[in-house]
């Protein structure tokens, strides 16, 4: 149908969702969308994104405390460090765009943390995936599920956002989540 309507390149994903072996996302189209109005200026998008990374970082730190063995504890701390790197790149982008240097403490005061990446709360993620906190594979699987959820949310948000620069920022963050998901997959394969 699409090819006949002027779509230049159309590919059928054979087997559809049933054949899809990688992580999937769940929930309706509006899940987590309340975090963004769609009218945010670029700096506001970065503040929301930073808060989501902060939420996930705190989530991993909480789980590190609950972890049953040292390997899993280390893994959670490693995952939380990755979120710190994401936060730093968002903070750097904030200062570049605002053209006024805001120190990190002042920036963090402007950021509210309410939800994790992907738009679900800590409890919702744990209820949903019920990870075994003694298993490295399950922990990485949980992290991959969250990244898949985050990638999905940023895609949906991108279609809602009207400001071109804000949209570009969201797309860039979505691409970073995609890379993060791939690297977690490699980590999983290495176990």
């Amino acid at each position, binding site marked *: 149908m699409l090819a006949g309507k002027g779509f230049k390149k159309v590919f059928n994903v054979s087997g559809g969702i049933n054949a899809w072996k990688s992580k999937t*996302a769940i929930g309706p189209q509006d899940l987590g969308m309340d975090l963004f109005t769609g009218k945010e200026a670029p700096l506001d998008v970065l503040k929301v994104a930073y808060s989501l990374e902060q939420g996930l970082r705190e989530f991993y730190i909480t789980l590190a405390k609950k972890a049953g063995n040292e390997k899993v504890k280390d893994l959670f701390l490693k995952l939380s460090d990755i979120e710190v790197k994401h936060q730093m790149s968002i903070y750097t982008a904030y200062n570049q765009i605002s053209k006024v240097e805001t120190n990190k403490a002042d920036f963090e005061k402007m950021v509210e943390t309410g939800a994790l990446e992907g738009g679900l709360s800590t409890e919702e993620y744990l209820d949903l995936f019920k990870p075994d906190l003694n298993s490295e594979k399950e922990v990485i699987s949980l992290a991959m599920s969250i990244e898949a959820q985050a990638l999905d949310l940023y895609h949906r948000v991108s279609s809602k956002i009207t400001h071109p620069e804000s949209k570009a920022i969201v797309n860039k963050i979505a691409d970073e989540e995609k890379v993060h998901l791939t690297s977690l997959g490699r980590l999983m394969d290495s176990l």
Partner: protein
Amino acid sequence: MKWMQFLTPAQSFDYKEAEAYMAEHASDTVTLLDVRQPSEYKESHIPGATLIPLPELTDRLAELDPEKPTLVY
């Protein structure tokens, strides 16, 4: 009648090829289109997919960019 729609075959990707294709392309340069029903999408979907159920597709084509490669499932 637009014969093109019957004569233009869509190439198929298996999931590995589709995943690799999306990994190689920036998010805003490819459309991943989910044409199932909202209840199916809610249960599970490929991250980043845009939902337009098949019965609505003809009326909502303007929401999509025909210039972008489009992966459909």
